[in-house]
């Protein structure tokens, strides 16, 4: 299976199911790749997969994809440790891969179940950008006869928030207000809690998410409002950014902008890093975690 096919498979995944997380799509694509792979040795397989991941992140440079890829690699290597015989190992891999996909497909509901209890009746919620998980949480809350209203940033440059409202939020009948990105500080004093999704959860327990998340977190901290993050566990990524500068460029900018080798100084970054000290709790399919628990999980996985 060559790059073109791989990319095609990836894009197909995204197309047929708009609700799917890019990481999941990537993993599916990779699984597909694995099935069709002609390699004879684990090492060979690993190399091919690495390249495949490279190409994928070439298409979509989001943290999610790379985290998904890494997870997949890890999963390969873990299984390969158990079984020596390659062919046996491979089918196990495929079988488990399916299982894995089935698991993570459940994760959003798990999160919603955990998180919606934190939304009290009559709550005012502030959220940022476009997150399917947040949507799921809000749906769950609405389903449990909670009355709440939502403020959402339009989140420039791509107006993701506006889109979000039009496509999703308007469906569950709760009052929704779109606010300027610049109005976060203004609105903060009247909201009860902040819920955002995440593209990636880094080892420090901080998150990488759509640009503007950080400022929202800072405001929330200043006003002592809880700042909740909802993210599936496959978004956990082995990365430890110290500050915004420390976040690799490949995440900050879109893949195509990176290709055009103009100087990035006048490019708008698409994501920013929010430090764990600003986060109250993370809701994952592994349960409700304090930021410090995230690294614990990653350690358990990779060490």
């Amino acid at each position, binding site marked *: 299976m060559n790059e073109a096919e791989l990319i095609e498979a990836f894009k197909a995944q995204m197309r047929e199911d708009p609700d799917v997380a890019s990481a999941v799509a990537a993993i599916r694509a990779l699984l597909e790749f694995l099935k069709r792979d002609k390699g004879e040795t684990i090492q060979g397989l690993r190399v091919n997969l690495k390249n495949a991941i490279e190409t994928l992140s070439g298409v979509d440079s989001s943290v999610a994809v790379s985290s998904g890829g890494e997870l997949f690699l890890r999963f390969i290597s873990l299984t390969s440790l158990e079984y020596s015989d390659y062919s046996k190992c491979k089918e196990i891999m495929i079988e488990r891969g399916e299982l894995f996909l089935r698991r993570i497909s459940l994760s959003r509901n798990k999160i919603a179940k955990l998180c919606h209890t934190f939304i009290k*009746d009559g709550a005012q919620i502030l959220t940022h950008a476009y997150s399917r998980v947040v949507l799921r949480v809000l749906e769950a809350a609405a389903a449990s*006869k909670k*009355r709440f209203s939502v403020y959402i940033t339009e989140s420039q440059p791509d107006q993701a928030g506006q889109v979000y409202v039009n496509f999703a939020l308007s469906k569950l009948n709760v*009052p929704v207000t779109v606010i300027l990105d610049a109005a976060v500080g203004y609105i903060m004093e009247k909201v009860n809690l902040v819920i955002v999704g995440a593209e990636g959860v880094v080892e420090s327990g901080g998150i990488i998410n759509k640009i503007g998340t950080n400022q929202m977190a800072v405001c929330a901290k200043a006003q002592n409002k809880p700042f909740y993050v909802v993210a599936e566990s496959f978004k956990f990524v082995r990365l430890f950014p110290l500050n915004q500068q420390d976040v690799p460029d490949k995440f900050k900018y879109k893949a195509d902008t990176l290709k055009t080798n103009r100087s990035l100084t006048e490019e708008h970054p698409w994501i920013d890093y929010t430090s764990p000290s600003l986060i109250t709790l993370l809701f994952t399919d592994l349960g409700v975690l304090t930021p410090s628990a995230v690294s614990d999980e990653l350690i358990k996985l990779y060490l």
Partner: protein
Amino acid sequence: MPSPSGIRTRGGPEADAAEGPRACARRRMMAARGSGRRGAGTGGARGPDPQEEPPPPLQAVLVADSFNRRFFPVSKDRPRVLLPLANVAMIDYTLEFLTATGVEETFVFCCWKSAEIKEHLHKSKWCRRTSSNKVRIVTSDLYRSLGDVLRDVDAKSLVRSDFLLVSGDVVSNINVSAALEEHRMRRKLDKNVSVMTMIFKESSPGHRARCQEDDIILAMDSTTNRVLHYQRTQELKRFRFPMSLFQSNIETVEVRYDLLDCHISICSPQVAELFTDNFDYQSRDDFVRGLLVNEEVLGNQIHMHVTAEEYGAHVSNLLMYEAVCSDIIRRWVYPMTPEMNFTDDETQSYTHSKHNIYRGAEVSLGHGSVLDENVLIGQGTIIGSNCSITNSVIGQNCKIGDEVILDGAFLWNGVHVADSVEIRQSIVCDEAEVKEKVKLNPHCVLTSQVVVGPNITLPEGTVISLHSPDEEEEDDDEFSDDSGVNKEENKVKLKGYNKAEVGSEGRGYLWKADDENEADEEEQRQSLWGPTLNPEEESETESDLSLGSEQPDSRTASPQLDDIKVFQNEVLGTLQRGEEENISCDNLVLEINSLKYAYNIGLKEVMQVLSKVVMEFPFQQLDTELDPQHYCVMLIPLLKKWSPVFKNYIKRASDHLDALSAIEEFFLEHDGFHTSIAKVLMTFYQLEILAEEMILFWFSQRDASDKGRQLRKNQQLQKFIQWLKEAEEESSEGDQD
């Protein structure tokens, strides 16, 4: 009321009778020293004594019927004790209270709608095997009053030792163990003199949970907690205290008006016996008053226990219902709060959140609906949008439309309220329906399945029921009203509903006549809602509506003349019978007492009437004109015979003077007999009915009319007085050496 002279002779303190209740709330008076005939209250000393046998298991008698019809027409559909109080039947609160306070066996006496009560209890947790409080149900349609119940208790000899006596509408979290301990100690110390300990709660006047009808003022001995005087204050502008209160050598008499009667009393088995002995005791009040008045005769005392911390109240009318309900919501009865779900009924599980908002399971609220504060919403209730609800209780499976305003509304189960309805301080019973744009003003009552509206405003105090008010007449003669009604279910809706009253789609009869007769309306309002806190509202008494316990004392203190006349004749009759079948004096006393209650005659009147009757007795025997000698001949043996009767009534200085004045009066009427007055007085004196100093004092009274002086001029009398004087001097000299 003691005549001032009585005080002067005793040199006691001036007890002003015309005193407002607030003024004499918790007011302390030292009793005057000197010759008080009352025995001192003994048994103040407490302390655990070594040989203490373990107390027997505590029993309770729960009277699940209030032998009156205050809750009509509500209680026509549902016995009073099952009325939901914050969505839980009253009787459950009472039982929970009993259980929590350590009662191990409870006898529930029901009469009206006993079947329903039985069924409820069987379903409840009280009849589970695991319940620590064994509930036994005793039913009979013959009970007409608390008295009957207790007589039955005595007859069946159900109670083995001290027991708790409560009615089925008491809500309380009091732990009586302390009071019980005191009670037992008392009985141990002074050999069963104290038969009952009443439990009161401290609460300042004007408190909402203090129902005016039940308001009492009482005098107690604050060292021994003995109740000395007990009086209902309703509609009394001035209170009267027997002078003896302050003359007895009880050091610390306390007059208290800051007490709320919890209607919980610890009784010894004697109480039941006493009820049996005194056929005329109907209510606990009769009992208390009876005991207090002829304490000497029966030699029993009543004590009291005052609690400051805990809560205790009894739902005697709808105002109290309202008050107690909101107290429950405001958690005064902790731990008996809605979310505690003490009835273990899964449909009764609530979550409690800020501002005392309680929500049952799957309650749904429309957008923009605000639950302001103190709201209880039962399971499965659906509330529309933009409603404002405050201080209200909503039952299970109610449907409430949009733009509804509920303020102090009490909706029971399955009530339907349409859009833009406004309900204030009203009660809507099971399955009633309120249609669009109806406005219920305060103190409205819609009994079950009534329908009102649309577009109608019910004036204040409207009561609408499916039972038509004319059902009343038949059972007005009944003593207990509740029992008579069973036969009437068949005769419902004999005439159509008045659309003007209940609205175009309405169903139900208006229970109060509108303008034509104010009085009835007043009665209605009062009988249901009871008097509100501002006194001018209560002008009528409900005496003729409810022949219940409140009846006698709801009259004003000074009885009308005709009463006295009747009373006099009765007394005369009694004495004649006494003469013929020569009944013992004690029984005579008892009868006279019972008459006294029946006609609510003050001691003073009794005194006068008695002496008058006795003096005139000879004429009744043979109405021929007889001369003084004959008269004396006939009178004196009578006096001798009945001297105990007199003694029983002539105790205090004032009594003496009353008697004397009565005698004087008699002689003034029959001036032919002036000569024999000396003899008569002599007899009285010798029989030690009248004290000499009293006679002297009477004689020396200057305010006598000229005829009076005439009388005093009579030389036999002069002699007699002279003689007395000398006697006194001698005695005083005797004292000197």
